[in-house]
């Protein structure tokens, strides 16, 4: 079955109309923009990056930059492979006022002033000039224009697939690889970037038997082959993870084996004015001719050293076009066609013409007189560069093969195969064999081959190794003339002379050369210029091509829209809401983001909420806390190892505050640890660190496989709420059948009780400094329990309270918040938690460091302070001593209970004693605060224990 994707429009019988630069253009059914523009006689489609030279259709396969236009505001669209929809608005890029007359083409005249890397050598003296020059550069740089009004309304999505074998490339090799693997029993996905399968044989059947073409129809119907056309495999990531773009969809495929049969990119020939509109690559001309139904008006000159050049001449003649001459770089003509003028042993030196080709200057390869052949088209066919990007990406090793004049895989990445033209096979029948071989090899790696098929594979391998290759390159890329305007890189307007100059300046390494000259850094990413730039580098340095090496090929193989990469994700950002969320909404809560959670920050005035907890009773939703259950005979060992606290002596039914640190003794998080049974513990983490602590536990559990422990993350399975205040017990009593008296459930302890008819874990703890109960129930009953508590609390004026009130309440007690009051350097001692650290325990995480820290003594300390007056300094205010920064405020609020401003701050140890004065800088003012050791409220903890 074949999936054409959403972009494959079926045009109506009469074709469609679109506009190009304001001009109405009609496309016949099935035509691309390129075919229609060619038919309309529009040959200048864009202006080049640096010199603003006119550019026209060149590769016609969606690789080169020449046809990049804006389509309906989308920048940098290669119109040669896209089909128009009615009313599409196409605009040329990088040209003003129009693509035919572009003022910036003055740069082309000034080229002598703009040699390679000129911008590194100019514009910086005197210093104030650079920003002025730069603002000009930033007005003219770049190609396409971003449509700032694009509202991002396009739909993008992602499809995930798993398969045995992915075949990239639907040419002869790929088709046969897919067929062979599927016939052997593998599930196959075949990907091709063109609208129809077949690759080059579609426009250049050459010697291929029509029966071979029929294979593609069998493939499209094969039950084990799923085919995606108009789909570009742009990435071959680690572990055979293939990323494909199909229109606005990304297909992510996990494959066991990948066959890369990506063919080749036709290689341009480098001569003077080789970028003029009217100069085309042979396969591009063939596509226009055979697939787009286009004609070439006027005489044509073909330059070639390949059989394809002759086949093209034949095709052109058969369609009634005028081939003025075929220039064969070989001394002996490689073919003969009746009535065709062949100039063997000749080469092209220059294209003449201003905005379009008017002639070709031809010279004998061994020197001699130049002749100019008047023509309107120059079509070049000097071979292919293998499309090795995906192979490089996958980790295959490639090496230059001088006989083939191309880089070839010498070492394949695991599960990766290559077939066809990437391997250097251009003869169609050999491609068929090599494809079949690769398909069988992939199936073999999956253990699918029968004895017969194994024999067949061995036989094919030996046949292919003996096959001769029809492509006899002359390894010519560059004409011999010395003119400047011989473009090696048409994306960035880099000429042969630019490269040679750069090498002379010292940028001789191919990677440095690339970065300095910007060759291969443009839209084609080296597809057009790779071979020639390496050859020029080798020739100019007088070394072998192999010694030059290559630049690194990186994903994506073809540029991918950010929308395709993102998919629907921007609209699907995770929002976590607790079971009571809608209740909070109805109660008018203002929410804040706590990680991915939404938490009520306040319902009404936090001051009222604060007073409700201090004087009556309040209820806060703490469902966002991390919650972990640990069971097993070795849980105590694990806890003793992971926390600096001691847990072996924690009695069943008791709760202990615990803090976790890393190997350096840095505080990571804190929470409550409950012993529910001999081998069953339940513990909580802070909201922000829930995921990190989960990973931390799993990491260490993996490191201690000998311990028999099972861990369950209950974070979202349980809702939590904290009922706090002097009347909290009265409320709980009304809804629980259990005994919640101070004797039965003293501070700090835990009990499994029934609350509002729901089994609950009830913790008698007091983060906010009052009598309080934290009630954890299955999430599906969270709202029910919450409602029941609120109802039962009515007589006591119960109030829901939010995060802001909770922060004020805990600050009264000097309870720190990890990550707010501590940072990535706060250790357990400095954070004033020395009573937690039991250095006499056996090894635990952070013990070595904490030991050291204890020995050298603390340098700074998290202290509580009291501040008189009415100015509440910012959190993050600095603490200054004699003009230098010595500390900072981490939390600060007005405390009604203390009757003053209170806070937490980091100060140097010498200013950390009870009664020390610290100098807080706020808005240019200096505020004097007093260090206080005791909590600001209920020093003796009577309220907690009441």
């Amino acid at each position, binding site marked *: 079955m074949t999936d054409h994707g959403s972009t494959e429009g079926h045009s109506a019988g009469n074709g469609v109309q679109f506009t190009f630069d304001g001009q109405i253009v009609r496309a016949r059914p099935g035509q691309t923009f390129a075919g229609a523009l060619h038919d309309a006689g529009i040959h200048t489609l864009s202006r080049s990056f640096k010199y603003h030279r006119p550019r026209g259709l060149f590769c016609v396969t969606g690789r080169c930059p020449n046809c990049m236009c804006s389509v309906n505001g989308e920048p940098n669209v290669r119109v040669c492979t896209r089909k128009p929809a009615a009313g599409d608005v196409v605009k040329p890029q990088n040209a003003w006022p129009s693509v035919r007359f572009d003022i910036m083409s003055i740069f082309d005249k000034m080229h002598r002033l703009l040699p390679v890397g000129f911008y*590194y050598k*100019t514009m*910086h003296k005197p*210093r104030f000039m650079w920003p002025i020059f730069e603002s000009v550069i930033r007005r003219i*740089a770049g190609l396409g224009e971003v449509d700032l009004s694009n509202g*991002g309304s396009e739909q993008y999505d992602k499809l995930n697939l798993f398969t045995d074998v992915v075949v990239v490339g639907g040419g002869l090799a790929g088709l046969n690889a897919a067929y062979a693997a599927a016939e052997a029993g593998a599930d196959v996905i075949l990907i091709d970037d063109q609208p129809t399968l077949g690759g080059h044989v579609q426009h250049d059947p050459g010697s291929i038997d029509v029966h071979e073409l029929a294979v593609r129809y069998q493939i499209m119907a094969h039950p084990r082959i799923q085919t995606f056309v108009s789909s570009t495999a742009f990435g071959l990531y680690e572990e055979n993870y293939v990323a494909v773009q199909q229109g606005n969809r990304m297909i992510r495929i996990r494959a066991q084996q990948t066959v890369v049969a990506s063919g080749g990119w036709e290689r341009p020939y480098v001569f003077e004015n080789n970028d003029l509109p009217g100069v085309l690559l042979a396969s591009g001309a063939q596509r226009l001719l055979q697939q787009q139904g286009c004609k070439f008006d006027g005489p044509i000159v073909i330059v070639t050293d390949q059989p394809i050049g002759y086949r093209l001449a034949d095709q052109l003649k058969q369609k009634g076009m005028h081939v003025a001459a075929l220039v064969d770089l070989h001394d002996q003509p490689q073919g003969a066609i009746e009535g065709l003028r062949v100039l063997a042993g000749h080469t092209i030196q220059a294209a003449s013409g201003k905005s379009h080709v008017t002639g070709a200057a031809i010279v004998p390869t061994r020197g001699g007189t130049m002749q100019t052949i008047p023509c309107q088209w120059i079509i070049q066919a000097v071979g292919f560069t293998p499309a090795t990007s995906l192979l490089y990406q996958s980790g295959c090793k490639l090496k230059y093969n001088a006989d083939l004049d191309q880089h070839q895989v010498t070492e394949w990445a695991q599960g990766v195969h290559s077939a066809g033209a990437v391997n250097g096979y251009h003869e169609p029948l050999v491609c068929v064999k090599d494809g079949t071989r690769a398909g069988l090899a992939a199936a073999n790696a999956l253990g699918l081959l029968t004895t017969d098929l194994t024999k067949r594979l061995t036989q094919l391998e030996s046949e292919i190794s003996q096959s001769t290759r029809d492509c006899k390159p002359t390894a010519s890329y560059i004409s011999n003339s010395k003119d400047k305007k011989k473009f090696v890189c048409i994306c960035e307007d880099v000429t042969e002379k630019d490269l040679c100059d750069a090498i002379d300046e010292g940028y001789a390494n191919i990677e*440095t050369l690339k970065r300095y000259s910007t060759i291969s850094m443009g839209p084609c990413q080296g597809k057009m210029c790779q071979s020639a730039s390496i050859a020029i580098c080798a020739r100019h340095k007088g070394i072998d091509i192999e010694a030059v090496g290559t630049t690194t090929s990186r994903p994506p193989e073809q540029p991918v829209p950010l929308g395709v990469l993102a998919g629907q994700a921007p609209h699907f950002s995770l929002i976590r809401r607790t079971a009571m969320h809608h209740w909070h909404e109805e109660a008018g809560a203002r929410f804040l983001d706590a990680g991915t959670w939404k938490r009520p920050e306040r319902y009404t005035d936090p001051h009222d909420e604060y007073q409700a907890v201090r004087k009556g009773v309040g209820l806060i939703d703490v469902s966002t806390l991390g919650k972990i259950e640990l069971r097993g005979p070795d849980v105590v060992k694990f806890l003793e190892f992971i926390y600096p606290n001691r847990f072996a002596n924690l009695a069943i039914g008791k709760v202990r505050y615990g803090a976790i640190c890393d190997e350096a003794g840095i505080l990571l998080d804190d929470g409550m640890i409950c012993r529910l049974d001999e081998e069953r513990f339940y513990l909580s983490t802070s909201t922000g660190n829930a995921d990190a602590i989960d990973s931390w536990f799993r990491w260490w559990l993996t490191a201690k496989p000998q311990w028999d422990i099972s861990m369950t993350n209950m974070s979202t399975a349980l809702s939590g709420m904290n009922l706090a205040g002097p009347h909290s017990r009265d409320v709980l009593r009304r809804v629980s059948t259990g005994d919640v008296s101070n004797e039965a459930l003293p501070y700090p302890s835990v009990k499994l009780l029934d609350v509002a008819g729901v089994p609950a874990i009830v913790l008698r703890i007091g983060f906010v400094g009052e009598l309080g109960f934290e009630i954890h129930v299955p999430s599906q009953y969270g709202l029910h329990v919450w409602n029941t508590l609120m109802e039962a609390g009515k007589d006591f004026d119960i109030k829901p309270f939010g995060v802001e009130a909770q922060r004020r309440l805990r600050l009264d007690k000097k309870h720190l918040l990890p990550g707010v009051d501590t940072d*990535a350097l706060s250790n357990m001692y400095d954070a004033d938690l020395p009573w937690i650290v039991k250095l006499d325990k056996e090894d635990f995480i952070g013990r070595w460091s904490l030991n*050291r820290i204890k020995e050298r003594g603390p340098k700074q300390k998290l202290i509580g302070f009291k501040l008189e007056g009415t100015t509440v300094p910012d959190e993050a205010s*600095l603490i200054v001593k004699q003009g230098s920064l010595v500390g900072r405020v981490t939390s600060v609020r007005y405390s009604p209970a203390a009757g003053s401003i209170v806070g937490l701050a980091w100060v140097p140890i010498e200013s950390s004693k009870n009664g020390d004065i610290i100098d807080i800088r706020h808005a240019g003012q200096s505020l004097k605060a007093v260090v206080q050791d005791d909590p600001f409220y209920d020093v003796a903890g009577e309220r907690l224990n009441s």
Partner: protein
Amino acid sequence: MPASRMWRDHELKESYDVVIIGGGVHGLATAYYLTKLGVKNIAILEAKYIGFGGSGRNTAIIRSNYRTPEGIAFYDHSVKLYEQLALDLDFNVMFSQHGHLTLAHNERGVTGLRERAHTNQLMGIDSRLIQPREIQELCPMMNVFGPQRYPIQAALYHPPGGIIRHDAVVWAYARGADRGGAHVHQLTEVNDIETPNGAVSAVVTNRGRIKTGIVLNATAGYASTICDMVNIPLALETHPLQAFVSEALKPWLHHVIVSSTLHIYISQSDRGELVSGAEVDDYLSYSLRGTLAFAEGGATHLLELFPFLANVKMLRQWAGLCDMTPDYSPIMGPVDEIKGFYITVGWGTYGFKAGPASGHLMAQCIQSGKTPKMLEPFLNSRFLRDQLVGEKAAASVSH
């Protein structure tokens, strides 16, 4: 007429006064400043080509709005050197100081930025907290008030921050060092360092042995491999960091935008490419292969800030290696264990912006044999003294 050579190739000499391992911005800047101090017999050994490592892979953001006084003073020194660099080296390194914005999307983020603003101002750095309306004025095309999962609440605005042409900095320092007499040796790999009697005596390379009394390890990614040769353990973990560029577009974004909540930073070069990166990958690896997950995540977050970029194309993605220290600050200076062995390593995600300062101070350190005051907080011994320079809180996306 062909322009003059940037740097020349040389035969390896038998001995050099100073051997610098690593041909990135740190090594080359140190060499350049050493030649200015009169130390000219220097070899820079680069295993690949100059700028192969972090210097060629970073996203070229320059700023000094750090968190600690030590860090701020140091990076400010670097920014000042960068401002003069084009003139100093007579090479246009294209330093664009269009301003740097760090976005905060939650309260904790705002507090963190406020703390930095306070500290920056105390240290005389142009840096302040700005509100969404001013963010929108500075960057009208950013989605500040539109629908966003984590709405922008404030930003730290640092006007002198900006971007630079990173390769040009490398080449310019290489030329400066070359003209000062230093030898830049590319494709020269160090295999061993000889330290009889606790002092450096020679470096063994794939091209031969060099006698020297002073070695500077100015490598990244392989900093610990080099230090292993002299048995000096480093408190480093090596993580990949990934980045990508878009196709060239007419410039429309002039500020550097950073968001730690969205794990993204973005700027637009003078060529018109959007350059975007993330925080280090959370796993340890020496792999330089990009991942699809990174490209997907980066694109997603970018579109939250700039939804109109959906049809703009990613052109290229890549990865670099970051040596992360526990406090997100570098390690510089001499080491106590071996005489003549110096390091400038652990440059995490903030190495390029520090290149000139690191080079300048390391050169002084090597030439005088004394540790400059500004370097003292960053000595390797700080880990044993337990005196870290806590940039980590500020550095969750530290560009």
